[in-house]
Structures are given as C-alpha cells and as structure tokens.
C-alpha cells in the first residue's frame, strides 16, 4: 500500500468528520500554542533583559556589599550592609592590586524627591561621579557639563539631571544654573543629559547625579557605599580583574575564606549567565506543564481513534477480505492519527504566532518596552515533531486494535 494513497485516504476520512476531528485535536492545538507563546515570549523577555545588561558595558564590574543574594529576601541585606568603605576604593586604586583597572567610582542611592519652585518630582538620585556615568553609558550632557574631581573633593552642591527631570521641573525653560532642592539642600544644575530611556535597569532620563561625597555627608549621613563601580581596561581582562578585586577587598577586610565574603562582584557576563539559567529553568518548568497537556491531548486522540476504529469495523473487514494485510490496516490508522495531531501542531503554531505577535504588540505599545518579537523556528520544528510523535504514540493502540480485527466478524458487524 503506497504512502500517497494512505495519506489521501486518511485525510479524506478526517475531512468527512470535520467537527469531530477539530474537537479531537483541540488539546494538541492548545498545547502547541502554549509552547509557541512560552518560547517566543521567553525569548523576547530574555533578549530584553540581556539588552539591559549589555547597557552596563562588558568592561564594567560592580562591587556590592553583603552576601551574594540567593533570593529576594537577601536583597535587603545588600542595601543595609555597610561593608564597602573609602579604604576599599583606596586599595583598588593601587596599580599593584588591580593592574587593569582604569576607573573606579563609588555610588550611593539617595531616596527622596527633588523640587524646584512649586514643582516636585521623584527621580532616581545617585551620589556618584558624573564621569563614570558618561563613560559607562556613553552619555554626555546635552547642555552644560559633568562635575569633576574638584566637585567631589569639595563636596560641592551640584547636580546633573536627566531629560525627564528637567522637563518635569523646568518645562521648556533652561535648567542650567538653577537651584533644585533635595532634602532641603540646594543643588545647582550644571548639566542636562539627552533623552536615552531605559538602560541597564534604570531610566537615564529620570536620574539626578550628585557628587557621592556630597550625598554621603549632607543627604545621608553615612560613610559607606552602596556600590563601587569599576571599569576594566577591556572585556578580555574582566575575569582577571574580578579576581584582583576580590583578593584586594578580602585583604582589606581581613577575610581568608571566600565563604566569609561580605561583598560580591557582578559582571555583565555573570549576570547574563544568571539570567540565562533562570530563563532555562523557567522554560523547562513551563515545558513540563505543556508536556502534560500534550499527553492529555494525546489521550483524547487515542479515545476518538478507538471510536473511529469501532465505527469502521466493516470497512476494516472488507479491506482485509480483499487483500489488506494487518500492516496495511495498522499503517492506515496510524497515518490518520499522525495527520490529525500534526494538523493540530500546525494550527497550534499559527495560533501561537498570532498570540506572540499580539503580546509583543501590547508590550511595545502599551507598556513602552523595547520588546522584539522573534519567530521561534526551533519551537516550530519541535512543535510539529512533538505533535506528530504524540499521534504516533497514542495512535498505536487504536491502530493495533484495527489491525487485529478478524475479517469475518468485522464484515458481519452491524
């Protein structure tokens, strides 16, 4: 029995029972749709997050106080730990300790709002060095200038602000030279950044950068840092530099066992790996859920194929009487169930693509995310293969039942 004929016969019999065939494959359709959406949205989320991470630059190394967070509850420990102090920065600056370091800048986070005249706005206020910001993100003031080393040494009350902060407080008029208020202390605006949007997990347009020394002394009253940001000479020496940094700070803190570290180091590569791990686990988990739905769908297919075999007992008897072998009958029903589920897979892929496009449209237009839709070719191939495989596996039992039928009894069947 040739394949083309088998295919045509099976297809005809499925078309003859359109609504039943459609209901039968619903489970498969939903399963494959889910796979498509999960993979597509997963890829989109991953590239979005990875895009943010790449914003910090491959040469940047961030040192944070406290222990490496293992979960959300550890984050607080990071924020309130005071282990990173000026002596660490001094040690890092020594060429003999960290030879490939080109720049180092401590940072503190200042909670609060900023006001000018009657306007108040809640931006992200960082005590940092403006030069580091410009160097890391390749972002230089559109108007005015960055504050320099002198401002940091003198704890000057100056600020460089993001484009949105400027717009909220000053509207159309110039901000340069104006005094804005943070926690009742006045800061003179000396620079305004051009619009850039979301980069490296914060919105550049919503920042206010003041000298970290000023922020620590006058705004926070603390003597430790929330972060120390280091720039390595080039991406190739990042791993080596991380080692040097860890050794240096351990020495400063008198730590011998790395398990006792009261700081941790984050690099772009490390974060990328971490995100990829998380996404991998998430995808695996969701895939397991989808696999269950495919099994349920497959049982549905098996059920209907059994009904179909019983209904067509006479046809089977006739085919056997006129020369069909058991193998011919087996193939016919197996091809039928595989076509059924593969069709479900194809419909699922089409629906999945539509839903993924819809998701990316909504995320882009309503949530203003820099979301990119990617058509997951792998998921398409996988989807069709898996659905056809489900048909094969769950088609075997009904097809065997059909092949086993005794032609005499089958012909007599009413």
């Amino acid at each position, binding site marked *: 029995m040739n394949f083309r004929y088998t295919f045509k016969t099976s297809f005809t019999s499925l078309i003859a029972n359109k609504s039943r065939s459609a209901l039968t494959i619903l489970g498969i359709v939903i399963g494959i749709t889910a796979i498509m959406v999960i993979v597509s949205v997963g890829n989109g989320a991953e590239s979005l997050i990875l895009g943010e991470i790449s914003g910090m630059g491959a040469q940047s190394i961030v040192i944070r106080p406290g222990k490496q967070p293992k979960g959300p509850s550890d984050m607080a420990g990071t924020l309130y730990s005071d282990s990173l102090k000026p002596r660490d920065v001094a040690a890092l600056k020594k060429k003999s300790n960290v030879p490939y370091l080109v720049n180092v800048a401590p940072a503190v986070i200042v909670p609060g709002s900023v006001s000018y005249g009657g306007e108040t706005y809640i931006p992200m206020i960082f005590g940092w060095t403006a030069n580091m910001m410009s160097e890391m993100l390749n972002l230089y003031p559109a108007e005015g200038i960055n504050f320099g080393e002198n401002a940091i040494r003198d704890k000057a009350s100056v600020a460089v602000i993001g484009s949105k902060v400027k717009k909220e407080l000053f509207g159309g008029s110039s901000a340069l030279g104006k005094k804005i208020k943070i926690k009742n202390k006045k800061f003179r605006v000396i620079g305004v950044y051009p619009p850039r949007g979301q980069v490296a997990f914060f919105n550049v347009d919503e920042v206010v950068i003041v000298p970290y020394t000023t922020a620590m002394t006058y705004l926070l009253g603390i003597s430790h840092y929330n972060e120390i940001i280091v720039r390595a000479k080039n991406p190739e020496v990042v791993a080596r530099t991380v080692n040097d940094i860890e050794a240096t700070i351990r020495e400063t803190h008198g730590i011998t066992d790395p398990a006792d570290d009261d700081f941790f180091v984050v690099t772009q590569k490390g974060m990328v790996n971490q995100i990829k791990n998380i996404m991998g686990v998430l995808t695996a988990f969701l895939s397991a859920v989808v696999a269950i739905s495919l099994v349920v769908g497959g049982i549905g297919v098996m059920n209907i194929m059994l009904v179909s075999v019983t209904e067509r007992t*006479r046809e089977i008897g006739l085919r056997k*009487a*006129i*020369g069909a*072998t058991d193998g011919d009958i087996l193939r016919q029903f197996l091809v039928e169930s595989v076509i059924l589920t593969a069709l479900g897979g194809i419909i699922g892929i089409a629906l999945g693509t539509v839903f993924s496009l819809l998701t990316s449209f909504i995320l882009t237009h309503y949530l203003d995310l820099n979301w990119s839709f990617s058509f997951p070719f792998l998921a398409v191939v996988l989807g069709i293969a898996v659905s056809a495989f489900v048909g094969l596996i769950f088609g075997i039992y009904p097809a065997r039942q059909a092949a086993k039928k005794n032609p005499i009894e089958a012909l007599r069947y009413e």
Partner: protein
Amino acid sequence: MALIEVKNLEKIYGDGDVTTPALRDISFNIESGEFIAVMGPSGSGKSTLLHILGFLDRQTSGVYRFGGKTIDDYSKDEIAHVRNKKMGFVFQAFNLLPRATVLENVKLPLVYSGIKQAEWDAMATDVIKSVGLLKRIKHEPSQLSGGERQKVAIARALVNNPNVIFLDEPTGNLDSKSGRTVMEIIQELSEEEKRTIILITHEESTAEYAKRTIHLFDGRVVSDEKVKYQRAARDFVK
C-alpha cells in the same frame, strides 16, 4: 489437479464442552472454470464453507487445497496477497465504502496489489465499463440502486483479474429484476471469461443459474450434482 480440493473438511465452533459443529466431513473438488452454487437453508454451514474456501477462516480438521496449497503453506501476509490476487469476493450487503465514488471503491483491491498507482484508474475503469456502470463512475454508493451497488461490488471483485470469484448471497438484498441483471453479469463471467464462480445462495431459483449445485444440510453435503436445465439470465446462454 483440481483448482479447489476439499477433503474430509470439519469446522467446529467453540471449545471444551460446548461445541457446535458447522461443517462435517465435507469433500468435493472444483475445476477451474466451473460455475457452482452452494445451496442450503440458513445454518447449514454454507457461509462457514465460503470463509474457509476464501482463506478467511481455518478448518478444524481435514484438508483444503487452493491451487494445490493449503492455508498453512502461506504466511499471514501471503494469505492476504492470495485473497487480493487470486480471489474476488462479493457480499450480500455489498460492503462498499460509503463516502467513496464507484471508481474509488473499485480501485480498492489495487491499493493492496503492488500494482503501480498510475495504472489503477485505467484498470478500474475497464471493469466498471464491463459491468455497464461507466456513466455512474463518479457517483457514491448512496446515489446508486441496489442492483447497481452489487455491480460495483462485482467490478471490485474483478479488478485484479482473479481465478475465482466467491459470491455470498449476491442477490439476497435485491428485488428479482435487479437480481436477474446481477446474475446476468455473473453468468457472462462464467460463459465468456471462463472464470471459476462459487455462488452461495439459499434460493433454488438463483442456484439454477449455475452448472453444478452442492446442497448442504446441517453441515453435511447432501447432494452434489449437475444442473439439468440451467437457467439463462439472458437468451445467449445455450
């Protein structure tokens, strides 16, 4: 050597204590080209006999040789092939595929024959023409009369050009006029094409179209004789 040799054939249904003998000590030979009617009331074992002769069932004891070979000389797939190539079957209930056209129904045995698909249409069209249904070739069974459906079934039995055609009550579901046109075709196959025909019927009048009748009663052969005055479904029969 006879085409069909049956010797001391027995068929017993059931096992253990409850057994029902369906065929008992049946022996006869059929030569190639014969037209035989197997007669008997219902329950006489004629369908059982047909199933054994058609390699659809297996006897309990005794010998059945088709072309010199028994069912045990073949594997399961080879038996299917013998049924496909050397035997044609026509059933009382027609057993056509309901949603397939006349052409598709007649082609069905070719599907399992190993013949190239390119030749199927021509072969099927030929036999459909020979039973006079060419103008119905695209119709589905539901659009045909009973007589026409049985002619489709006969065409299907002929398409692989088999030695033997088994007919199980072919006129049983037909009115007398349609029955006669069907018998006309069957007689033609015997007279003009010299095919071996084994016809099962419980009607004396249908059996009279054959040249020889074997009467079964309670699973035994009670008579095996030449038909003295063969009925002609059409005038040409001598």
